């Protein structure tokens, strides 16, 4: 059996790549993709621990989070499409409307 550490290292690497992507990418679509990477890193952990502990709860959680990720991307893309239509850009640097 492959040791648990390998999975954890893989997921950590993916997670950090995701964080860096979220923080550095200018394009909002790439930010969304990076978020997916982070979610998947979490999913890998769930699946790895479930297999390791012989506990199916982890698989179920992984399914849930895939579902949530799908929904989130649908919503996120919809927002981005609207933003693009309004502001004619998807660059996060140009989108500072959260400032009051």
């Amino acid at each position, binding site marked *: 059996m492959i040791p648990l550490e390998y999975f954890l290292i893989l997921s950590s690497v993916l997670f950090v790549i995701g964080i860096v992507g979220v923080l550095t990418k200018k394009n909002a679509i790439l930010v969304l993709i990076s978020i997916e990477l982070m979610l998947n890193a979490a999913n890998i952990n769930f699946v790895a621990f479930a297999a390791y502990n012989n506990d199916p709860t982890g698989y179920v959680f992984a399914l849930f989070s895939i579902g949530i990720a799908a929904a989130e991307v649908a919503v996120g893309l919809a927002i981005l499409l609207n933003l693009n239509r309004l502001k004619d850009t998807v660059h996060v*640097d140009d*989108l*500072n409307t*959260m400032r*009051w």
Partner: protein
Amino acid sequence: MQIYELAWIIPLLPLVAFLIVGFLGGKMKDKGGMIALAGVGGAMVLSLLVAYQALTAGFDGGAHYFEQSMAWVSVGGYDLQLGIYIDTVTALMLIVVSFVASLVVIYSVGYMHDQGERRRRYFTEICLFVGVMLGLVLANNFLQLFIFWELVGLCSYLLIGFWFERPSAASAAKKAFLVTRVGDVMFMVGLIVLLTTFKTLNFHTLFDPAVIGGADQGMLALGLFFMFGGSIGKSAQFPLHDWLPDAMEGPTTVSALIHAATMVKAGVYLVARMFPLLIFVPDVGLFIAIIGGVTALMAATMALNSPLIKRVLAYSTISQLGYMFLSLGTGAYLFGIGLKDGNEALMAAGSIAFAAGLFHLMNHAFFKALLFLSAGAVIHYVHTEELRLMGGLRKHMKVTSTVMLIGSLSIAGIPILSGFWSKDEILASVFEAGSDHWVFLLLWLMGVITAFLTAFYMFRMWFMTFAGEEGEATKHATHTKGEHVGAHGDEHGHEAEVHEHHEAPWVMLGPLVVLAILAIGSGLVVFIGEGFSGTIFFDVKEAFSLDKILGDWLTYLSVLVAIAGIALAYFTFYKKKVDAGAIANKPSVRPLYNMLLKRYGFTKGYDYIGEKVVYGFSLAVDWFDRKIIDGIVNLISRGLVGGGKAMRKMQTGLVQSYSAIIIGGIVVLIVLLYVLGYVLGVI
């Protein structure tokens, strides 16, 4: 109903008059003079009734006082009250204050006649002055006394600065206010010490020997010491005496009131009030006696060559007040020593000394009011205060010169006149105390020298004013009086009719005559009943006796000294056998002469202290305030503003910077938890 229960009305009457004159006086024809007289006179009538009852019938149930009070503030275990307290000392003060004040107000109606609109201000302030002084006398606790004490200070400030457009009057008022304030701060410190020691300031609790005995004697001594500081300021004793000569800038009637009945007598009254406490700390009594003795002598020397008539009287007041403090201090010391050793004779001697001090207070009030009001009449006539310019006034002012002669003889201590009895009694008491402490012998000697100087300078003043050749001012006044009156004939209609050599009107002379009678006779009250030993709070009593006074060589010594002083003045300033000017101009005497004129440099000294020490200190405090205190405040505000600015910069509105902060925060948290776990040994 007892008359005592009405005593609270006494200070109220002048205060009501104060309000009426203050608000409506301008519309009245005499600018409120009659209302003022009604208020003060009413207070006098009631005061005399109360005092008569207190001095003859005594108080109910064998008590030595009458008290009426209501709770004012009760907080944190401290119990403060408002009320009135009447005992024999109060009764004496009531007589003195209300009676002299009434005469001064009557006199003022004439004296201030030409002041026009300003009379309203004058009568308003006089009413307030008398009212608060009576309130001070009637207070039943030290805090209430202190409140009125401060009000008396305010009134003196207002009245000394009555002619505020003169720079000298304005600065004299300021000086009086500030110098007495030094004493008042000490008084306040003393009050706080007493309040923390006893938890109350009510007289009847404080004067209970059991309460005093149970208290911390060190704290008691400290409190009394500081409270006496208040007396030093108010009564113009060394070293805070210098404001009183300057206070002559006010109207002469105000000087009379301040010197005879109100302001400076408050300090003596305070010491008399503290007496039941003072006897538990004889050392403070000794201190008071020393201050009194030193002041008496020093002020008398300064009066020797003073060129202004009112200045001479001012110095003489300081000197006489010194006598009172000397006497009260000696009394407290003797009584205290006697109390410690259980020596009845010493306690009796202490009581006598105490009584002598109060006795002198009363006599002084009468003859000093007389002297000041006479001086006022003189100034009214010649329009100057310079003694050199007067002279020869006796012919023109018969009544005034006579009553002033009576006053001068009285203060000089010539027998039968009032000043003799009290001054002699004081000197005898101090001499007697000499057998217990050598300092008193020294003080006695100073007292005798002071008596000599007093006789000398008073008669120097009298001869220079009334005797000899007519001075410039006298000639001018007698020569131009007719024209002067004619020119203002329409203003003072009745004056136009009188002939030109006219002294003060009878509204001014009347009070003088009454005071002259008192200056002659008030000393004889010692032979009525228990004499002045009746004013003492304690059971130990010993009446003054004529045999004792006549049988004592000290009596003859003080009479001799007084006559010698008068004789010296007579030969110097009347017969001109001695050339005073030549003596003063001798190179060996000149520096001394100048030193006395400059009041031993006290005026300069105050300025020096004010300029160098106080101003320097103030600069340091100012620096501390601006740099340190304000600096701290500014630092806090600057920090908050800076923090706000930084927070605003963080508010970018960019999702990525927010998430960077969140992630950074999480990382920091994880690291912290890791370190914490490591330190605690969990990991």
